[in-house]
């Protein structure tokens, strides 16, 4: 992907919608294209969190497994973000990310994005506000999911 293409892709990604031009320029310099084949693992549980991805196409499964039990807890696709924990320091991945379809994404080194946030708090505010929105959305979805609404024995206090 040529730098101009990367910048366009960033500008049109929902996560960065409305981000001031100068910050798009800044992020364009950090972003690099990655692609994964079907069933390739993007990261594993326990991996140090380093990269943050904006998915451009394809479908990723976030999953967790123990013997006899394998659960996909969420699927992510074009327009979604993957690996937000890399925006926090000293964390590791809690789930495995596996490609259900071939995936193209733009990746950032989370530590470098955070360093930029520290240098320019206005930029940091833009990024963190988006990250908060993203986490809130994931949390909301998770809460509904744990309610197990489709099950006749769904979650109840009694």
């Amino acid at each position, binding site marked *: 992907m040529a730098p101009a293409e990367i910048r366009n892709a960033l500008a049109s990604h929902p996560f960065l919608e409305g981000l001031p031009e100068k910050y798009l320029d800044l992020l364009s310099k950090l972003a690099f294209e990655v692609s994964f084949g079907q069933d390739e693992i993007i990261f594993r549980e326990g991996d140090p969190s380093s990269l943050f991805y904006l998915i451009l196409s394809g*479908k990723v*499964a*976030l*999953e967790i*497994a123990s013997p006899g039990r*394998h*659960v*996909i*807890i*969420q*699927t992510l696709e074009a*327009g979604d973000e993957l690996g937000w924990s890399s925006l926090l320091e000293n964390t590791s991945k809690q789930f495995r990310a596996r490609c*259900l*379809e071939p995936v193209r994404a733009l990746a950032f080194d989370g530590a470098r994005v955070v360093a930029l946030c520290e240098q320019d708090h206005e930029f940091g505010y833009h990024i963190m506000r988006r990250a908060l929105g993203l986490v809130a959305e994931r949390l909301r*979805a998770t809460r*509904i*999911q744990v*309610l*197990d*609404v*489709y*099950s*006749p024995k*769904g979650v109840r206090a009694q």
Partner: protein
Amino acid sequence: MSTASHAAAPPARPVMEPVPVQIRSVVKETHDTFTLTVAPPPGDPVSAFEPGQFSMLYVFGVGELPISISGDPAVRESLTYTVRSVGQVTYQLVTRRPGDYIGIRGPFGTSWPLKEARGKSVLIVAGGIGLAPLRPAIYSILRHRGDYNRLVILYGSRSPRDLLYRKEFAAWGLLPDTQALCTVDYGGVSWRGYVGVVTTLFRHVRMQPQETVAMICGPEIMMRYAARELEARGLPPAQIYLSMERNMKCGAGFCGHCQLGPYFVCKHGPVFAYPEIKPYLDLYEL
């Protein structure tokens, strides 16, 4: 005393009297859900239903339950019900065999706004067993396909093994001007579809919100989220319809159990326009 719209002559058969009908088939849909087809007496009013309505199904000596009709309204010689085995009566229903008899009363309740939706696109949002009462609406739209614009069917379920009508669902997705997408709360290792709440599928829907009628049926929490989200996406609230569930013992407004604020779900519902029901949806223990 009686209002004009209700002034019709009382039905010949007392409303609480079931009609014995023979079961033609019992098809296993999932590990706990079965589809029963019964043969009502030819021409009996019990078989004339509108999509979204329900019948009261009676198991001899065991009890009676409201079950939505899940078959094609154009087929008058049989009635179809999709039943999830969650209690005594439902267990008895799904363990009947072809040739056995059950009793039915009805049909009862309001129906999906198929007339109002003519000329518009239709967005079906189903959750779990909620796809069953929507299936007659889908059949009706497919039968009169020219009357409607796009048809989008979004279906959320607990897990892949809980998905109903899988072959049929896949076939709907291949029809022109039709999208059929499903998502599950929890996927297994071989699942290639979506995992997430049903509202996450909205981003794949391509339709003009102003020209769309939405029909939603599923667990109440899911319906509340879906209706709110659709409203936020520009669907006029009056074009959103929901099918509600409450404890319905009689179907006829006598027993009082299914009251929801000013409504009896059995006769003012189960299908409500969103603005009618919205003030009551968020009230706890109403």
